[in-house]
């Protein structure tokens, strides 16, 4: 993975000093709370429902074991011994003390970490495929591209105060695991006809209040032009994106207002002045960065391992875990392992200090000392020998990290919601918990099979509910928590926004509604169909009908005919 040189380290150290000074000036009364706000946000610090929340950057989801140990130590010393992984592959601490945040950033800097631009109206943490570098279906490793972008976007002087936040994701695999079409800019690494590497550029995607699928603004951009083109694109957005209404300020609104052709034309025009300038990426620089991501010292191993196959045959629980949690690797004899942070009773994406240390130990012992965070809020060991999988499973199970539910109903993406987040309209974690309780039979959820269920506590859609097969959105109606359900969303190459099935539900109704939707699928599916396939074949009607069937008996509905607040306005 990328390691800092003395310049990278100095920049981060200077950032800590700058932030420390800002907090001191705020406490001394010479920097007002309003003036501090954008500054602390660009260092990851929110002021939340119960106090501050610090969002620590994990660039493109990659961590070294030593970094995770430092996070464990920080969570113990400065928080409540727990961290929360987010859909931007970052980690949030929910209980730090305001005055201690400079100390935390100082600690992070000692392990080449920071909280730079994890919030605020700036270019946010770049995300990518959690299987980057090892996925059999990838064209090339996207991480060097991400690191190039990280350096370019870090303290970019022109784009620190954009109209709104700006999220970039990179995918270099046949199957998009980074949801690039739901980003302000999505970059798909491809080769042109001549074999040159470059990117297809999507812009104007995003979830939030107005979910939009990104549109192609450039079919092919050679790698060397990556940064100058993005400078041009960001400049057009910085100058012409709306600033009068924060709900209309994302780039998707600008792209839609201009039309994608006109937006692209303006970017091309701007780019014509910047193209081939000093920002043109050199092969030397790309190779310098790419060298940091050179494959580890893999052993030459047979594709299969007798002991591993034997353990699958003799241990049903292990076999079930392998089926869900073990993924193909491009190197023979190796596999990637997803450690589930979706154990029943735990808040999705939460990890304790003890678990962090256990994962760090597993990474050191079995996976070359590195790991990844997935946007689905799990942890991935990317380079495990198949012959070690049984040991990894046993160790993971001892720390409640081996729930065999990856890709299943209870592998929910879930934001912190109203329990913690000041923006939320409703709580999310109790909904996740109630669904876990309703679907507590592992055989049953294995029978349901591949499905995505995501929960967001408000329109900001941190839980990516729009692109889930079943999405749950918390809405506030007259100070009561209600939940709107969408069905049919998908991420990946066929990213689709789910359809709202109708008026929203009380919290207590949600598990039954989910069960009703699942029952339609179980009754109607053909042997080869996943939930989403059945939905695509049948359409929304049978699901909608079942969800509301007998509703009056379940709970009196106060305002069944009121107009729904919908995320699709």
């Amino acid at each position, binding site marked *: 993975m990328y390691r800092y040189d003395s310049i990278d380290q100095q920049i981060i150290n200077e950032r800590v000093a700058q932030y420390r000074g800002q907090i001191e000036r705020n406490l001394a009364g010479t920097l007002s709370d309003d003036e501090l706000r954008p500054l602390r946000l660009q260092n990851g610090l929110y002021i939340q429902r119960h106090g501050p929340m610090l969002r620590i950057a994990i660039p493109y989801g990659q961590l070294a074991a030593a970094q995770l140990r430092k996070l464990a130590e920080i969570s113990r010393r400065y928080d409540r011994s727990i961290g929360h992984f987010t859909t931007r592959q970052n980690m949030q601490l929910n209980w730090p003390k305001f005055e201690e945040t400079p100390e935390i950033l100082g600690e992070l800097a000692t392990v080449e970490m920071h909280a730079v631009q994890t919030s605020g109206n700036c270019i946010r943490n770049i995300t990518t495929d959690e299987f980057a570098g090892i996925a059999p279906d990838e064209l090339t490793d996207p991480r060097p591209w991400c690191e190039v972008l990280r350096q370019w976007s870090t303290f970019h002087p022109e784009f620190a*105060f954009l109209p709104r936040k700006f999220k970039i994701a990179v995918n270099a695999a046949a199957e998009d695991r980074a949801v690039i079409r739901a980003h302000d800019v999505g970059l798909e690494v491809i080769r042109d006809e001549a074999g040159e590497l470059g990117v297809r550029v999507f812009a104007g995607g995003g979830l939030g209040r107005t979910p939009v699928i990104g549109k192609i603004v450039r079919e092919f951009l050679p790698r060397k032009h990556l940064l100058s083109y993005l400078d041009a694109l960001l400049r057009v957005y*910085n*100058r012409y994106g709306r600033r009068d209404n924060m709900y209309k300020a994302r780039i998707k609104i600008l792209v839609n207002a201009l039309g994608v052709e006109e937006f692209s034309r303006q970017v091309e025009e701007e780019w014509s002045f910047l193209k081939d*300038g000093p920002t043109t990426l050199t092969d030397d620089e790309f190779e310098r960065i790419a060298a940091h991501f050179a494959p580890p010292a893999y052993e030459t191993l047979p594709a299969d391992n007798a002991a591993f196959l034997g353990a699958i045959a003799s241990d049903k629980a292990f076999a079930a875990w392998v089926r869900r949690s073990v993924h193909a690797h491009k190197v023979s004899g190796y596999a990637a392992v997803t450690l589930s942070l979706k154990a029943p009773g735990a808040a999705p994406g939460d990890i304790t200090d003890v678990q962090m240390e256990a994962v760090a130990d597993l990474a050191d012992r079995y996976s070359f000392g590195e790991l990844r965070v997935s946007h689905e809020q799990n942890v991935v060991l990317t380079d495990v020998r198949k012959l070690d999988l049984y040991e990894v499973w046993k160790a993971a199970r001892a720390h409640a990290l081996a729930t065999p539910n990856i890709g299943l109903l209870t592998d929910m993406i879930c934001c912190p919601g109203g329990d913690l987040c000041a923006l939320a309209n409703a709580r999310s974690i109790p909904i996740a918990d109630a669904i876990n309780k309703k679907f507590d039979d592992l055989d049953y959820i294995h029978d349901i099979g591949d499905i995505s269920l995501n929960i967001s506590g408000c329109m900001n859609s941190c839980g990516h509910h729009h692109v889930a097969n079943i999405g749950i959105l918390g809405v506030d109606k007259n100070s009561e928590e209600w939940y709107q359900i969408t069905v049919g969303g998908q991420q990946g190459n066929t990213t689709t926004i789910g359809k709202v099935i109708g008026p929203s539900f009380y919290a207590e109704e949600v598990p039954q509604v989910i069960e009703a939707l699942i029952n339609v699928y179980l009754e109607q599916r053909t042997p080869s169909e996943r939930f989403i396939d059945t939905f695509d074949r049948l359409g929304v009607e049978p699901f909608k009908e079942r969800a509301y069937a007998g509703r009056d008996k379940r709970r009196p509905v106060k305002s069944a005919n009121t107009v729904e607040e919908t995320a699709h306005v």
Partner: protein
Amino acid sequence: MSKIIKNDRIVDDTWQVLKLAEGETAETVALPATPSLLPLAVWLARKDEILASNASFGVWLESGEGPETLAGDLDHFALIGVNFPKFADGRSYSTARLLRERYNYRGEIRAIGDVLQDQLFYMKRCGIDAFAVRADKDIEAALAGLRDFSETYQAAVDQPQPLFRRRAA
């Protein structure tokens, strides 16, 4: 006399920023006799009159105005203001870079408006070389904001070569 930061030092300054008051129009507002930054609209409406006067003048650009309409006139100005109506409005960063990098403007670019210590470093990188720090702030303290970082990744006005080209050298 007010003070500004100019070329990394605190200096006395006599320039005034003319803003149209309620009811005033670009066509009718009285042109000041003292050195003044004029609104773009005043300049566009009364170029000949302004050029014929003996007063020192410059133009200031509101954050949404951009440099394009001024592009052909830059030789007339020793000083152009770029306004930050709120420090979180980042449009004038692009304006400043365009003035320097596209239109090769070599005179002074002065940040006016909500100009605060913690943005000075970015402003300087974008080619702003004078800073009318907000009057209620300690300008001595603000000066330190120009030196928050000793190294930067991107190419910009203050350092036309990105770090990766200098690292390689």
